[in-house]
């Protein structure tokens, strides 16, 4: 049993920040190289642009569904301090994370459109991942990935490697058994995992106060013996600083860490949602004041690392870039029709072989009569 000291409690109940909502320094300035700072901003812009394009493609009926990330772009700060060999289990709302890990806009679009180049072979919607980037595709059932990340971290420690695992999930996910088990195992086995809870105030229509009466998610982390901190999650510098420390400690001391990222979802839950049913426009307008891009841009402009017009240019550049990429992705062929028979087992068991025959007969009939099915 561990005791709880005053300092741990404060970290779990107060909110760590570096910049205020206008981009003024209010905490200790982290020492981050200029190029990293600019890169960080660029990722955030790319995430914003891509988000807008996925929304557009969804409205055009090309993309099945999209979970907007607008307002939560500061998550890129949490992943940037990772090494490529570290593992990441992203959430479905983490466009910026995919980009930082090396995924291109092209690949994200191929995935969203599940065309012939979809690395996940048309398995599910609104999820992204690729072994190439040590980024495991998100399971749609909320929270499932949490204990997986802990297992991976255990295996890293077991192998004596100095790698870490990071896993993202929402505030709603903290109510699930997966969170409970994952945090508990991480505490008991002391493994190098960093939990990032993106507390955006809402789980679809359920506000945080109705999700839990806990003082904070970070406080809840302490209840598993996992050191935890609450961070202004719209302040990318705060996110970066805190994550960097957590990652270094995990790498060295094999200690888990929980970061509660206080943020706000400015868009709808997904493109299938209608937030006007449960929250006011005023709330959203008010929260726009705290959004992460504007704030960070101010800091960069004040620091002389970027000008307003350079920032605008960046946005425009990526917009045309994604437009091109979308055109290309839309022109690709669909996946083979029998794709879903593969990747269930490493080889086809006899019942799947028989069913594949039946499937081929059906295709013949479809073609014979020119039936419309797909």
């Amino acid at each position, binding site marked *: 049993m561990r005791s709880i000291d005053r300092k741990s409690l404060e970290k779990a109940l107060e909110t760590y920040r570096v910049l205020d909502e206008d981009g003024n320094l209010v905490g200790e300035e982290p020492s981050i190289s200029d190029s990293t700072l600019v890169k960080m901003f660029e990722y955030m812009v790319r995430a914003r642009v891509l988000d807008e394009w996925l929304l557009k493609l969804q409205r055009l009926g090309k993309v099945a569904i999209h979970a907007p990330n607008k307002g939560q772009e500061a998550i890129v700060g949490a992943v940037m301090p990772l090494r490529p060999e570290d593992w990441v289990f992203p959430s479905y709302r983490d466009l910026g994370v995919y980009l930082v890990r090396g995924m291109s806009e092209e690949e994200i679009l191929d995935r969203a459109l599940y065309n012939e180049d979809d690395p996940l072979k048309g398995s599910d919607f609104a999820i992204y991942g690729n072994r190439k980037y040590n980024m495991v595709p998100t399971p749609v059932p909320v929270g499932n990935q949490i204990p997986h990340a802990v297992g991976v971290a255990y295996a890293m420690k077991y192998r004596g490697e100095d790698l870490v695992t990071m896993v993202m999930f929402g505030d709603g996910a903290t109510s*699930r058994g997966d969170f409970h088990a994952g945090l508990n195992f991480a505490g008991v086995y002391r493994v190098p995992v960093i939990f990032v809870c993106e507390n955006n105030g809402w789980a679809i229509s359920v506000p945080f106060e109705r999700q839990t009466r806990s003082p904070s998610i970070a406080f809840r982390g302490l209840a598993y013996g996992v050191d935890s901190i609450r961070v202004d999650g719209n302040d990318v510098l705060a996110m970066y600083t805190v994550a960097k420390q957590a990652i270094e400690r995990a790498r060295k001391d094999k200690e888990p860490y929980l970061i509660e990222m206080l943020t706000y979802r400015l868009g709808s839950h997904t493109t299938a*949602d209608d937030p006007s049913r449960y929250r006011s426009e005023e709330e959203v307008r008010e929260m726009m004041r705290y959004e992460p891009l504007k704030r960070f841009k101010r800091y960069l402009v004040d620091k002389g690392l970027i000008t307003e017009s350079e920032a605008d240019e960046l946005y425009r550049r990526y917009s045309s870039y994604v437009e091109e990429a979308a055109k290309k992705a839309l022109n690709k062929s669909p996946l083979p029709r029998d794709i879903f028979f593969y990747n269930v087992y490493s080889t086809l068991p006899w019942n*799947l072989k028989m069913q594949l025959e*039946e499937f081929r007969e059906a295709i013949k009939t*479809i073609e014979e009569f020119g*039936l419309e099915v797909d």
Partner: protein
Amino acid sequence: MPVMNMVQALNLALREEMERDDRVVVLGEDVGRRGGVFLVTEGLIDLFGEERVIDTPLTELGIVGFSIGLALYGLRPVAEIQFIDFVYEAFDQIYSNMARIRFRSGGMYTVPMVLRSPCCGGIKGGMHHSQSPESFFIHSTGLYVMMPSGPYDAKGMLKTAIRLDDPVIFLEPKSIYRVIKEEVPEEDYTIDLGKGKVVREGGDVTVVTWGAMVHLANQAADFIKEKLGVELEIIDLRTLYPYDKDLIIESLEKTGRLIIVHEAPKILGLGAEISAYIAEEHVDLLYGPIIRVTGYDTPFPLAHEKLYMPNVARIYNAVKRSLEF
């Protein structure tokens, strides 16, 4: 009589039952202000307040475990699982408790609750917004399982489910939530547990099915009639457990040929049980093989779902094969 879609009919059933009986409470993720992601519970919170229309934290285990408690104390909870694909966290509570408390307590305690949820494919929902897991509930023993195929049945069956003293899994094929419209009486009526319905008469081949597949079977029947001059008799089971064996036997006595159509994977889908039942008790009625047209034994895919699911071509092929004998 007003014309309604299934969402409206279900909403009406809930409203009427809540007005009739203050033991009825509704709960689940986003069922309150949001009215459910498909709006089945729309407006109920305004009528009945947030004590009776309860938004829950995001845990299916919690929703079911908590509902069991409500039911133990005599309430009649109607719990929503946002998509049935997310029910599995709750499987221990469903299997070991919802289905077993009556037995465990020697009949002293009952769990009169309904677990309702959108199910099945056809909306490009991918792996986790498309599944048909009725087999898991049926094999559990201790549960009733229902799935309506249209607004009229939906209203009557949900009312039946709410009034039963035993726990019910109530599955709603979301692909036809808004597609099928029917006249739905604004009066009280129920539809008996365990009673299927012949939705199309025909003398050549019996097709047993349920949910959205009823409409597919009908479409296939038109096509097959045109191409082969063969008449399908289509049975909509409506209750999946206990299913209406008598209706199947009656039809088989006429046709001697049986095809079962369902969206769930073939292996141990309910079709297996129906087939095995006939092969065990009424093998003499059969002229040939019992054919199953079902989801394939793979996860439900996002890509090419209409080829994964039963479709007209597959039913056509099955009928041809059935007639070969």
